[in-house]
């Protein structure tokens, strides 16, 4: 028991990290092929870029609290590792936190982290550019001058209030269908028996039978709708095109993370990769019924299935412009309504 717990705590976040190295490269490669060009090698944006940032000179960022500013991505990475560990069967016996509500709480922390990062950053690219603005004859109307990152923080706040409904509504559809918030009940409903993991040890070649005997929620009608709403909520939480107003290149250049350099930027990229992995992994656990386990072939299948959602969303991103709030409010309300409809349908299906 103890050994498996320690092995799970080390091995599964490691698998998450390694899968995360491939995801940004796959995104750029798929978009490049749509744009009819060759595109970067798959490991370059995800792995070699991070390693290169670790070897750069350490600088002091322009920030009112530099040490807190540098530690925020590390907090984000640990929060995401806990989210993966809560869905692992070995941890369900240790604490009572293997529930959907705990994962939702951790994701809220991540949404807030972007706002915190932006409030501490003061890049040279906007207000402090050495240029004589306030001189005789200039227009002097604003009461104060705002940096790019602070504008991003306000936009992130609006996105949290409006754009987080679709994801969380879709996450609660399996809860309604199974009538329980525990991950152990949800995966058991779909045919995955956690007690049968280890008859053959960590390498069990009967994994194919176990996978084929699953009955996923995704293949029922409320499950399909919920999967679609989850996908849109996934794009909104990651701030990718078309919902990337927080990091829009045409006015705020890069958003909250402008002042990260050297190892902190490597940490920021790692945080983004772990968010990408965790959101896909939670989807596979909830809707297909295959959690990340210590059984190595099953873990490999889980990681490969996690690569499908980033590829799908990069196809959608390649064909869309940036939406402003004039378009985000109606689109988000529409998908929220669809999410409510799905929950009503699943309530009717259960009765």
């Amino acid at each position, binding site marked *: 028991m103890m050994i498996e717990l320690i092995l799970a705590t080390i091995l599964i976040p490691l698998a998450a990290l390694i899968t995360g190295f491939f995801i940004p490269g796959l995104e750029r490669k798929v978009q490049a092929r749509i744009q009819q060009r060759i595109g970067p090698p798959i490991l370059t944006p995800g792995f070699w870029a991070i390693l290169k940032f670790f070897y750069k000179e350490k600088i002091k960022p322009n920030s009112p609290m530099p040490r807190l500013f540098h530690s925020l991505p590390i907090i984000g990475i640990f929060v995401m590792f806990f989210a993966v560990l809560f869905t692992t069967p070995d941890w369900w016996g240790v604490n009572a936190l293997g529930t959907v509500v705990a994962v939702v709480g951790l994701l809220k922390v991540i949404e807030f982290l972007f706002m915190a990062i932006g409030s501490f950053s003061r890049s040279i690219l906007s207000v402090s550019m050495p*240029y004589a603005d306030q001189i005789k004859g200039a227009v002097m109307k*604003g009461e104060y001058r*705002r940096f790019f990152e602070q504008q991003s923080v306000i936009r992130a706040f609006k996105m949290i209030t409006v754009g987080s409904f679709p994801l969380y509504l879709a996450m609660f559809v399996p809860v309604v269908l199974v009538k329980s918030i525990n991950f152990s009940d949800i995966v058991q409903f779909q045919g995955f028996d956690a007690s049968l993991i280890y008859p053959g040890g960590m390498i069990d070649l009967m994994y194919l039978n176990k996978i084929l005997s699953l009955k996923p929620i995704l293949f029922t009608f409320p499950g399909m709708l919920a999967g679609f709403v989850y996908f849109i909520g996934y794009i909104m939480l990651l701030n990718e095109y*078309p919902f990337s107003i927080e990091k829009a290149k*045409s006015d705020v250049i890069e958003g909250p993370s402008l002042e990260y350099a050297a190892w902190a930027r490597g940490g920021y990229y790692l945080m983004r990769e772990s968010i990408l992995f965790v959101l896909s992994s939670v989807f596979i656990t909830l809707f297909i019924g295959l959690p990340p386990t210590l059984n190595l072939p099953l873990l490999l299948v889980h990681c490969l299935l996690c690569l499908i959602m980033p590829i799908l969303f990069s196809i959608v991103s390649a064909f869309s412009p940036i939406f402003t709030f004039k378009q985000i409010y109606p689109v988000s309300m529409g998908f929220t309504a669809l999410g409510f409809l799905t929950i009503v349908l699943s309530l009717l299906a259960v009765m």
Partner: protein
Amino acid sequence: MGEKARKENAEVEIPIGLVHPGMLEPYRARFFVEDEVIVDCELTLDPYHKGIERIMEGMPVHKGLIITERICGICSHIHLWNGTRAVERGLKINVPERADYIRVIMAELERLHSHLIYLAHATEVLGHETMCMRAFTLREDVMDLLYIISGNRVHYAVPIIGGVRPRCDIDDYRMSELKTRLSKLDVKIGDYANRIINDSMIMSRVKGSGVLTKEEAEKYATPGPTGRASGWGVDLRKKMKEYKKFDFNVIILDDGDNKDRVVARALESIESVKIIKQALESLPSGPVSNRSFELKEMKFSTSYIEAPRGEIYDSLSLDETGRIRSYQNRTPTLTALASMEVACIGDQLTDGMLTMASCDPCLACTNRAIVVENGKEKIITEEEVKSLIRGGL
């Protein structure tokens, strides 16, 4: 929304700095914003001032006209043509017909490549990288043609005083290349424009934002396709003697929002391909340059021309040995940006950046026109500019 939405006090100022991906040139824009809605804005362009008009004083005129090409990296041929045209009109030099045709062909090729850069830039500011790359792919054919005719991708140096450089003459190889590459280009540009219009995500951003009404366009003298998309303006090509033999339409649209500015330039590109095909068919034979002239003292001589962005005004005067005594150049982006400062009020901040980019700004060319008369400075007023444009050349 325009001037009616301008307010006296604003909450926040967001300065957008010298280095920014919104426009590929150094500029400083300060937006005064209240909860993402723009209530006023101010653009300063003075990082770019190089003093070109002063560098050219005292140069021999053949050498000095080389600098006019490097005023801008996109519309380079039209500045050089305008300068030589001013000298030829002042000294009454006769230009052979074949040279005029070749100058028109180069100008229309340049208009094509400039409008394609505009389409790529506007979609990049929208956030749609895929359409940006498709526009750059379409543009490569035109760049190849420019390279084949003149030897360089930008800064072609085709006109000289009295005609066209003999090495840029259109022989059989160049004629066949032009005909094959241009045969499908107007269909492709039409498909690209259709693809933008039928995409509802792009249209929701572009339609109804950055509206410039006809009265505002007249008040601020908006030049070129930007003004014609609001229903105001003329196309100077219809009044130039070099374009009299060609048959093409002038594109004037009604709404004045961002969508009309994009559509106007796409339609103008199709008209440009039409003009080039007509010019290739009826290319007259004969010499390409007339070098039998003498440089002597020339008083103030002016020339107006239609560049891809609007009207350009050039004036030159020479002294007895043929050196430039003074040179003025006034480019259209000055008033185009002034109108866009008004048009972006009332929209959200991201739409405001799109409006600034939608007037196709070329900040490198923008100068102010100052006339020196008898040793005293006189700034040309807006009434004089308007009457000069409407009255003729």
